[in-house]
């Protein structure tokens, strides 16, 4: 079982601030995904990264996959209240199931 540690576990910031969430593991992944989950709902996919060093941007969100494919980061620029939620990374080896990280709970205060 791959263990993915996310940091910080909780984050509360003011609207307009920038933030970075980290996802770290000792395992090498063939692909890594980031999800956002709102209360009472299932997680929703934000992005998939598959190449070491890959950077993907989704509006104000920037995702980076580590060169060794063991870690990833999510950077949010000018956070908005709508960004509030639980952010989860998930890694998979080959075509097996994804293992999810411990989660980062983000609250953006208006």
């Amino acid at each position, binding site marked *: *079982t791959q263990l*993915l540690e*996310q940091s910080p576990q909780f984050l509360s910031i003011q609207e307009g601030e920038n933030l970075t969430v980290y996802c770290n593991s000792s395992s090498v992944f063939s*692909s890594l*995904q980031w*999800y956002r989950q709102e209360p*009472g*709902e*299932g*997680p*929703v*996919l934000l992005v*998939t990264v598959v190449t070491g060093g890959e950077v993907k941007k989704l509006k104000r969100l920037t995702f980076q996959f580590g060169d060794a494919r063991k870690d990833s980061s999510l950077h949010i620029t000018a956070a908005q209240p709508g960004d509030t939620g*639980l952010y*989860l990374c*998930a890694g*998979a080896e080959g*075509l*097996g*199931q*994804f*293992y*999810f*990280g*411990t*989660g980062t*709970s983000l609250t953006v205060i208006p």
Partner: protein
Amino acid sequence: GAGVSQSPSNKVTEKGKDVELRCDPISGHTALYWYRQSLGQGLEFLIYFQGNSAPDKSGLPSDRFSAERTGGSVSTLTIQRTQQEDSAVYLCASSPYTRSEGYTFGSGTRLTVV
């Protein structure tokens, strides 16, 4: 259907009773997954079905937990002799074989064992 459907959305049961949780995946998705999530925490993998292959049951926490998938579609997760530590949200997801679009999750079943 348009999304992954789970039922019931909430279930309260007495300790020692058996419960069945249902998942109806997206039509055409070959893979189906069950995860468990404690309050505000990450997802714990339980079991994975892929097509007609034998399921990966490596995440099931005890022999009280079992799951089946009939006809490659609907899945049922059964928990026998429920314990208070089984209380959690049980999430089902499905995906195409390639998984390039990620998992599509249902809204989950919130199980409370009293």
